[in-house]
């Protein structure tokens, strides 16, 4: 069978000229390859997509892990968080010293610093006093005050001793000495384990758990209906609890139990690891199983907290910006894709119906589209987000709901022009149903145009999402998107310009690439339509 063997359609004519048959896609691909910017764009887009897809496999710090001491660290390729923390502290100390007149600065620079303070150019001031301070300390003309020295010592100690521990898996042993994983264990086992660990009666733990579940249910009920009060609320909660049943309760309680036990284990691991650290019997970063003194075994990762390196710095909560940008990219790109696909589906549905059925259906559908066009649609999205709650799902919905209009119009136009073509007549004359004709003949024929248009739309979606996030109406913490990162950074851009620059550059590069790629695709598939936006 030569079914999968590619047929080479090359013929030679009388002049030894080769005549090659090409398909539309092949031809388009050839044209695309010739467009250098489009190829570069495509490569960049692919790199971004791979980064977004495999973000979890990358050696990144968790994007939502906030370390308080690491707030607003500047980006550095070579220096660890601890060094940066110390530098920042020193800058502060030197500045205080300058202010108190303890740090000698040349007259000229003194005036400059004063001017900068007036203009609140904090970074310039810090850098200059730091330079002076380090020099003075090297010369021996400046010594830290007692309190400053204490601060520095404490910080050095912290840098040496603070340990960040993640418990990946936690194992315990049952009565027969059999090992089981805590996260997968059932309610009763965990209940026993927890009470043993706390050294209390299981019934006591159970009572607490029941109360907790009840509280959370009650909160839920109140969130759904804010008017409930007093007895009504009690009754509703009772009802809800009944609906939950014993099984539902155990499910929730198990979740809580796992959380408690893990927390307990982490604290214990922290204590044990610190103890070993001070004895010097452990090296960092440590990864492996660890015997806890309570008898459980934990697979842990332990590292010195302040040895972390933040290549793009950290944000105002001490979260790694690199990680946030990559995970933010995941969300931004996902929104671009999902929004496009959703608008694609709705648009094709409405457009093909209007185009094929024509007549009254067409008239009303298109009037509706016209009116929707008249609405300031970004404002509608803003209203939806503000009113129906700011979560990612609503964001998807809101963007998709308002963005199918153009695609519907395009599909309708395409179908209208295809409708009168001979092959559709032919299909009809052979008795094909309307649905069949739309599905098998018309949509495939207008698909390339629509797909290309959609590619061009992806950057627009990403921009819109970022726009909303910038206004604080998009994705909400702890999630990030490029827009929210930029939005967060704007207010503090004088002090921490890197926070604005890094996500901006990443986003702009992606949009740039996407735009060039989309343009290239359009030119390749449809060389005639150069003047469409």
């Amino acid at each position, binding site marked *: 069978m030569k079914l999968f063997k590619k047929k080479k359609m090359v013929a030679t004519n009388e002049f030894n000229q080769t005549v090659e048959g090409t398909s539309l896609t092949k031809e388009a691909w050839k044209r695309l390859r010739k467009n250098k910017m489009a190829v570069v764009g495509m490569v960049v887009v692919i790199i971004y997509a791979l980064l977004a897809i495999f973000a979890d496999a990358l050696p990144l710090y968790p994007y939502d892990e906030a370390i308080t001491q690491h707030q607003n660290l500047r980006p550095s390729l070579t220096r660890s968080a601890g060094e940066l923390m110390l530098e920042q502290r020193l800058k502060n100390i030197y500045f205080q010293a300058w202010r108190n007149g303890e740090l000698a600065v040349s007259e000229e620079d003194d005036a400059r610093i004063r001017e900068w303070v007036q203009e609140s150019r904090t970074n310039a001031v810090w850098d200059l006093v730091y330079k002076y301070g380090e020099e003075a300390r090297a010369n021996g003309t400046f010594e830290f005050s007692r309190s400053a020295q204490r601060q520095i010592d404490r910080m050095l100690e912290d840098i040496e001793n603070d340990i960040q521990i993640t418990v990946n898996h936690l194992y315990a042993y049952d009565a027969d000495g059999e090992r089981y994983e805590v996260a997968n264990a059932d309610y009763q086992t965990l209940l026993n384990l927890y009470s043993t660990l706390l050294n209390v009666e299981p019934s006591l733990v159970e009572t607490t758990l029941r109360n907790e579940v009840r509280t959370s249910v009650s909160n839920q009920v109140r969130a759904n209906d804010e008017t409930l009060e007093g007895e009504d609320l009690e009754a509703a909660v009772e009802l809800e609890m009944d609906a939950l049943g014993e099984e539902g309760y155990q499910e929730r309680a198990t979740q809580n139990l796992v959380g408690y036990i893990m927390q307990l284990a982490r604290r214990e691991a922290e204590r044990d690891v610190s103890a070993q650290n001070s004895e010097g019997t452990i090296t960092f970063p440590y990864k492996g199983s660890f015997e806890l003194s309570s008898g459980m075994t934990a697979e842990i990762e332990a590292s010195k907290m302040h040895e972390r390196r933040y290549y793009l710095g950290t944000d105002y909560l001490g979260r790694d910006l690199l990680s946030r940008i990559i995970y933010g990219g995941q969300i931004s790109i996902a929104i671009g894709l999902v929004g496009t696909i959703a608008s694609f589906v709705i648009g094709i549905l409405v457009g093909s119906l209007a185009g094929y059925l024509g007549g009254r259906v067409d008239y009303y559908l298109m009037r509706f589209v016209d*009116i929707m066009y008249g*609405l300031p649609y*970004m404002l509608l999205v803003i209203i939806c*987000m*503000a*009113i129906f709650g700011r979560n990612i799902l609503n964001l998807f919905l809101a963007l998709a709901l308002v963005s199918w209009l153009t695609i519907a119009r395009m599909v309708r136009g395409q179908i209208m022009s295809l409708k009168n073509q001979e092959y559709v007549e032919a299909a009809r004359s052979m008795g094909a149903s309307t649905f069949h004709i739309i599905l098998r003949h018309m949509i495939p024929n207008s698909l390339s145009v629509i797909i290309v248009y959609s590619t061009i739309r992806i950057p627009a979606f990403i921009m819109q999402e970022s726009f909303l996030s910038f206004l604080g109406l998009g994705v909400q913490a702890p999630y990030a998107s490029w827009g929210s990162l930029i939005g967060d950074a704007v207010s503090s851009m004088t002090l921490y310009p890197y926070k*604005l620059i890094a996500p901006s550059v990443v*986003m702009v590069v992606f949009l740039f690439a996407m735009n060039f790629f989309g343009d290239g695709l359009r030119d390749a598939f449809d060389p005639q339509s150069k*003047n469409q936006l």
Partner: protein
Amino acid sequence: MTKYIIKRLLGMIPTILIIITLSFFIVRIAPGGPFDGERVLTEAVRRNIEARYHFDEPLVKQYARYMFDVLRGDLGPSYKYKDHDVNYLIGNSLPNSIVLGSMAMAVALVFGISLGITAAVKQNTILDYFPMCLAALGLSVPLFVVAPLLQQIFSMQLHWFPTTGWFMTTGGGGWKTAVLPTIALSFAYYADIARLTRSSMLETLRSDYIRTAKAKGMKNSTIIFKHAMKGAMLPVVSYLGPAFAGILTGSIVVEQVFTIPGLGKFFVQSSFNRDYTLIVGVVIVYSIILVIMNFIVDIVYAQLDPRITYK
């Protein structure tokens, strides 16, 4: 022509009515009321407030009342800014937004069209590459990056322009306050217009009737400005409708970054506050501006293209 204009004007009325209706109901069916955030109200106070704002009436009646008020030009009281009604708030901020938007649009049009034409005429020279690179940048750099960057560079570092302020407010600084917001807002639209002008100009210059004009011995400049211009401007004109919509939303960001007392700020705040009347009021005002702009664009288009029949 007059008939066509009147017909289009009449056609705007149902659109606007539907927009009012839609925004009224979207906002009303939303969970949570405007007074939720405040301290817990006693039943009596709550009743009192509800009666004052007619929340106790059935929805249809509220709708009818609102519609009637809007048609008289009264957008109702604001729920959050208790001292002022919506008309006052919008009336005070709208001119700022409109001036900002029109300036940005004008700048984008002037630079976009002139550079687009130059790029098309001087294709594949530096006069083509530079404006088009700038345009590619304008397409890819979001407004909320452009605005802070401009502010950072030109006001914080170079001190050429003030960081904030608005020349239309008292004590808001001179014309310099308008420069950066206008540039920031116009950048993306410059990009679109320049690209559109260039490509449609190129296409027009390739067309048969331009060849005819050349065969008649016309000068290049005459060909471009007399023969090609009208045809090449058509796509640009039809782009202006959506562009106005974009500028309206874009001004929200610019107003926020440069702290300009425009409508955008009210809009974002009111949607956070669930200030129903203010939201609906702003949406209505924006929609009316948009509908009018689309109408003007249509008329201009019909003026440019003699093939459009005024049916």
